[in-house]
């Protein structure tokens, strides 16, 4: 039994325990903490354990012989970083659930976490897909049942997200099915990612076909990551979702689409993103995320909408890294996935507190919070500045690597579509600064509006928030801590460069 199976199993066991009546908070926080510790241990041993191809802690149980489906687990650098992200955000999310919430909050959060762990740590396409689907159900249910809006609105929002993500998943299923069938040699069909990778290396598909399949996968995965113009479910869903669900979905589960592109689509279809029409379409869509949604975000008046839209916008940078496909850009993309996940989880956690306190999140109605809740406002500043991409925080390292990697300056580079996209995308950083700093000034500085008062969080409530802020700072100052795991991406890049 691999230790990774324990990681996937723990949240499921926690759900069962809570369902059977165990003290929800204790079990939930305990299992999340245990998972974080286990994954830190895995990270420490990863280097020594990683076999060729960068996979470590592998283990597989055969579920079906033909088509070959096995419950296989294993981590490469990308999976490990996302596993750490999941553990970190899960701990923070379940910790900050207050005691007056029904146990359903813990059950749903742990189910989402379990699904995310499964999706990130499995090495079988079937289970990767299945676990992600599993995590979506509690997300919808929580938005529909405990969403922070009136009954009709939250149901409408939940259905919108369900239909978008359901349709995206079906497109994804079609793309994955196609991919698997293309690679199935003889009469045997396999869903095993490792076997598929070997086949892709020994006998790659024709370039044009790679482009088509990659595009189908891009639409499928892209819908899950709110790629423009398939993004409109995201902002209302995050504004409505209960805090832990918003943290877990925006912070962790949404990264699944990007993870799938990096771990499944790129290695199997290395030429896919470089087929001309695919590349142009992808660049246009991600510019839509950065520029159009950036402008939309500036126009928002309410903090939850600003955060929801900004989260859509920042996905554009990660797509840029994937579109470029160079080692540097991909490392940046993974790093930014981590940074964005932590930052947005922190911001949603803080925003949830504000909503409980004030009942509104409209920037114009708030003000001067820094004077009576200094710790709170500093924590918020961490999240906001990380989102902008301030040096010293995790997102900066990711964004810089993406921009450098995508621009590909080696003294001879010509200015092609990719380079123009980078130049335009840089303006996104400015837009992020505009809306984040404006929101920060409006809410935390100036004089407090009458009747607005909030205390700093108590010590125990601070712990998860500080944990997230510390992660941003540590990774921001020492990005090599994570980048060291990503050496395996170079093999992908080598294939891509062929």
């Amino acid at each position, binding site marked *: 039994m691999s230790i990774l199976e324990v990681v996937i199993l723990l949240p499921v066991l926690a759900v069962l325990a809570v*369902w059977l009546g165990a003290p929800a908070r204790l079990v939930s926080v305990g299992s999340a903490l245990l998972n974080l510790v286990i994954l830190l241990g895995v990270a420490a041993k990863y280097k020594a354990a990683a076999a060729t191809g960068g996979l470590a802690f592998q283990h597989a149980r*055969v*579920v*079906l*012989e*033909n*088509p070959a489906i096995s*419950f296989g687990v294993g981590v490469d650098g990308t999976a490990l970083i996302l596993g750490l992200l999941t553990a970190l955000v899960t701990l923070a999310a379940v910790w900050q659930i207050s005691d007056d919430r029904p146990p359903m909050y813990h059950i749903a959060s742990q189910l989402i976490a379990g699904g995310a762990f499964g999706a990130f740590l499995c090495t079988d396409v*079937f289970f990767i*897909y*299945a*676990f992600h*689907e*599993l995590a979506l*159900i509690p997300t*919808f*249910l929580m938005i*529909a*049942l405990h969403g922070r809006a009136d009954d009709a609105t939250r*149901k409408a929002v939940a*259905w919108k997200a*369900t*239909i978008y993500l*359901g*349709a995206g998943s*079906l497109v994804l*299923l*079609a793309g994955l*099915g*196609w991919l698997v*069938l293309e690679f199935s040699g003889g*009469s045997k*069909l396999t869903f095993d990612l490792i076997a598929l990778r070997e086949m892709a290396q020994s006998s790659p598909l024709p370039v044009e076909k790679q482009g088509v399949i990659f595009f189908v996968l891009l639409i499928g995965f892209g819908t899950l990551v709110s790629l423009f113009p398939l993004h409109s479910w995201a902002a209302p869903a995050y504004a409505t979702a209960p805090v832990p669900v918003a943290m877990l979905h925006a912070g962790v589960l949404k990264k699944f689409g990007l993870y799938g592109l990096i771990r499944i689509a790129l290695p199997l279809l290395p030429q896919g993103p470089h087929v001309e029409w695919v590349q142009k379409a992808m660049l246009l869509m991600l510019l839509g995320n950065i520029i159009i949604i950036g402008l939309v975000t500036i126009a928002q008046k309410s903090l939850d909408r600003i955060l929801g839209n900004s989260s859509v916008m920042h996905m554009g940078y990660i797509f840029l890294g994937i579109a470029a496909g160079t080692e540097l850009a991909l490392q940046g993309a993974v790093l930014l996935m981590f940074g964005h996940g932590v930052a947005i989880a922190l911001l949603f956690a803080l925003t949830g507190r504000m909503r409980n306190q004030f009942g509104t999140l409209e920037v114009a109605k708030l003000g001067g919070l820094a004077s009576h809740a200094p710790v709170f406002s500093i924590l918020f500043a961490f999240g906001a500045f990380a989102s902008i991409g301030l040096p010293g925080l995790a997102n900066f390292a990711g964004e810089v690597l993406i921009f450098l990697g995508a621009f590909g300056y080696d003294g001879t580079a010509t200015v092609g579509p990719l380079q123009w996209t980078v130049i335009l995308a840089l303006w996104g950083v400015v837009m992020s600064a505009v809306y984040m700093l404006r929101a920060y000034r409006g809410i935390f500085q100036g004089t407090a509006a009458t009747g607005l008062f909030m205390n700093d969080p108590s010590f125990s409530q601070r712990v998860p928030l500080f944990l997230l802020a510390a992660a941003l700072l540590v990774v921001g100052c020492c990005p090599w801590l994570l980048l060291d795991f990503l050496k395996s991406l170079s093999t992908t890049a080598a294939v891509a460069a062929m």
Partner: protein
Amino acid sequence: MSVFSIEILLVVLGVGLLLLEALVPSLTRRALASISLGGAALALVLFFFADKSAAALPAFAQPFHQLDTLAVFYKGFALVITLAVLWLTVESRAYLERYTPGGRHGEMFSLPLIVCAGMMWMASAKDLITVFVCLELVTVSFYVLVAFARKSSFALEAGVKYLILGALSTGVLVYGIAWTYGVTDSMSFEGIAEALAAPATAKNAALLGAAFLLAGLGFKVAAAPFHIWVPDVYQGAPNPVTAFLSVGSKAAGFIVLTRVVDAFMAKGSVIASEVQALLLIGGALTVLLGSLPAIFQTNLKRLLAYSSISHAGYLLLALGCAQTARFDLDGSSVAAFYLGTYLPMTVLGFLILTVVRQAGLGDDAQDFAGLAKKNPFLAFAATLGFASLAGIPLTAGFMGKLFVFLGLVENAHWFALSCAVIGAAAGFYYYLRPVLVMFTGESGPALKIAAPTRAVLVLLAGAILVIGVFPKPLQGVLKVPVASATK
């Protein structure tokens, strides 16, 4: 002990129970139920240990009885669903007593046994005569069962509709059999396949026969455009009977359909491609006409009726890919696998409807409001059942759909595939909506369920999860031998 004697045992038991009820007035409902359930359970155990080789059959049965993998699978299937239906009948006590005052429901306990024997024989049929006799044995028993709750106007309506359409479809079926016999000069599937492979066969006449045969069977399995009767009949019939219709009768129709299609689409058949097109178009249409109206249903029993129609569509699509034998399963065994996944989730659905009705509520969606607060266990089981019906990964329903979809992609039937995808997408909506209702709404008085019911629920939920995560055993039962895999 051969399988054949188990079938005889079931008939004897069924007829014996009918006589017992008529002649021994002191026998209670409980006693009747115990004999029936015990008998069916005994039959299942005996079946498990029985000698399932064709050689064990008595000599007189050899000419009209076969025992291949599919036959054995469907026989076991018939026994399991019969057992489940008898259990549902036990659970439906209040409903049945309300609409048949004073009765002991003897027919409800004996007729399913006879139906079961009919279905088991049908699975082994080698010729159209046997098929017809068995189908009638099953259908005539169902005429009685559907109209059993005779004081309910819904049940009477259902009974009349089922009687008229059942008789009509029988007529169509016989007409198709007659044409097929006229063209091929044979009643046995083997002979039909042989005759159709000869190039001199009158193609149009053969097609006419095939079309009528498929139409007649289409009524039995609730395939479009012969599905109009389904929602009304399903809604009106008592829950156990609806479950039996939805699972048992459908499976019976599909084993016959499998045999017929195998004969029509055998190697070199002159009408193979036409029959395949009929199956694919019919299947795609059935999926759509089952799924899309389901979106507008507010009554859960009607919802399950439409769900049953759309599942028939996926099954037809599986048969439409009969020629592929990848994944160790060919089209026929994919259909059988699908039915294997369909059984636990549908029975679970009807068991939950029955339990809620037993508690004095109805079948409408609002009767399920707040179920999560009244009985979280029941709501959890229902969520799993509906998730599986919708085909969410790691449940049995997903595995069934996966094989059907893979078959369609494999054979590049893109139109059928897109209809199937639309149906599945609609399914996410109409199956998950009742789940949402269960988790919202005001709490009411707690809904208590007895320990045996709870055990059955756990069993069904377990089956859904096990097949969903570890389908290998079920696939193994149906595995096509390598030799016949390339037909």
